[in-house]
């Protein structure tokens, strides 16, 4: 399969192009929508996990245990199962269990515990001496979180965001199961089920490029914010 082959295929499959563009839009939609909501909920959850720890800023053993168990349950359910298992919840939330919007719900639910653990890990890297110095300065717990913990862990958190987005690109391929569309879905339906190797290859290449872009953008941001 050479480059020429793809060019030839491209010329003779003009209608496919629109399909691929739409699919890319759906993938981006799913990845960034679920990512954004996931960060909005996952980052605070990660912070809570970190500060409620033993000897943490706001030590709370019970809260830490409960959150830990919930996050672990979320992390242990295979995504394809989560996708169908929460259909009633999805229907309640977006009014339908099929389509791109419906796929965003399980993607978000899957992303939240994932992000929470990554954020927790990033916060763990912040030297405890900094928190102590802030306490000695007379910082309130909320100020310590906003002015010390999160800014100091920012490079790690950005890294976590990138890992999450890339993982979501992978998960979004499974969203075809609930009619969510996207590049992975096109690859399976047109490439695999209709034996169209060209479509398969193009979707894979598009996904590779997408992941590359996300990763290099992230690396650039980490570099910019990392003053350690």
């Amino acid at each position, binding site marked *: 399969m050479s480059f020429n082959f793809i060019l030839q295929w491209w010329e003779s499959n003009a209608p496919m192009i629109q399909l691929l563009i739409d699919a890319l839009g759906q993938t981006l939609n799913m990845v960034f929508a679920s990512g954004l909501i996931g960060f909005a909920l996952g980052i605070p959850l990660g912070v809570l996990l970190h500060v409620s720890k033993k000897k943490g800023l706001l030590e709370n053993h019970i809260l830490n245990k409960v959150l830990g168990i919930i996050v672990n349950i979320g992390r242990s359910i295979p995504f394809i199962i989560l996708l169908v298992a929460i259909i009633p919840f999805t229907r309640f939330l977006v009014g339908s269990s099929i389509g791109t919007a419906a796929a965003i719900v399980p993607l978000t639910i899957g992303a939240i515990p994932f992000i929470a653990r990554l954020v927790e890990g990033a916060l763990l890297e912040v*030297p405890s*001496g*900094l928190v*102590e*110095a*802030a*306490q*000695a*300065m*007379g*910082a*309130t717990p909320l*100020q310590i979180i906003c*002015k*010390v913990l999160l*800014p*100091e862990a*920012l490079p790690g958190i950005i890294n976590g965001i990138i890992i999450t987005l890339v993982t979501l690109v992978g998960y979004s391929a499974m969203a075809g199961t609930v009619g969510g569309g996207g590049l992975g879905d096109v690859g399976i339906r047109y490439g695999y089920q209709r034996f169209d190797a060209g479509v398969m290859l193009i979707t894979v290449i598009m996904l590779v490029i997408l992941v590359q872009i996300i990763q290099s953008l992230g690396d650039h941001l980490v570099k910019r*914010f990392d*003053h*350690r």
Partner: protein
Amino acid sequence: MIKIQNVHKIFYQGEKKISALQDINLNISQGCIYGVIGASGAGKSTLIRCVNLLERPTIGSVIVDGVDLTALSAHKLTLARRKIGMIFQHFNLLSSRNVFYNIALPLELAGTDKETIHIKVNALLKLVGLMDKKTTYPANLSGGQKQRVAIARALASDPKVLLCDEATSALDPASTLSILNLLRKINKTLNITILLITHEMAVVKGICHEVAIIGDGKLVEHGKVGDIFAHPKTTLARDFIRSTLNLTIPEDYQVRLHATHIPNSYPLLRLEFTGKSVDVPIISQIARKFNIDINILSSNMDYVGGLKFGLMLAEILGEPEAAIEAIAFLKENKIEVEVLGYVV
């Protein structure tokens, strides 16, 4: 300014009870530079952390500027801490903020407006001599510069007290000296009470007015620096002073050293000068008086608070009787003499 009353601190390590501090009482007056010295694990770090309640005493109270911190609510304590600056051995600067914003942090916490922050931080940068490093990130500063930033940060909220937790222990001798000079300047110009803990006697000698010696969680001795150096009452205090002087017998002497007098051997002495010793040119006097030669191997004499003290290793060459008489004469002049052995 700082009153530590009857403070005990007990740590639990599983079932084991570790008594880190026992019945500590200290009274530090306004404007004083107070040093607490002790070996590693003596409890000095726990003690200084008890002053701003980073570590809450198990029993006892800590009174800073007339306020009993141990009796305050969490929120009131947070506010009270803004009047107590602290610097650390490892600086604890935020890597995500440049020098300017590191110093601005305590002001931000207190909700100070931007303009005031600007004026204040610039004044502090000038005070610590880092005007040209304003936009530098801590990762690109040397240890001494980092500690200067930390000092500026600690001073930003106009504290009445500055706590220094091993502030110079991670620095080279030249940086240590410049940081100590800066602390002295701050103490003089801003009239801030400084409590510092250290394991280096040189730091205490360098800038402290008063000193306390802590060992095994207990305060064993405290007083004016000159007095403690000159008249140490406890063995721990004495060991500390000796440790700073650090005189060891050279190895080739150790090989030739005999416990008892044998023919053609000379006594090797350790002379200890304390505040009680009569201040006369004693070495040349005994040389003349008893017709002996004195070979000084090593010597470490110091002058603190108007008093001379120190240790000296010397061998006395001459007739055995003359040596005995010379030793007696030294003792008469209140110099402590220990015969370490006889060198062949």
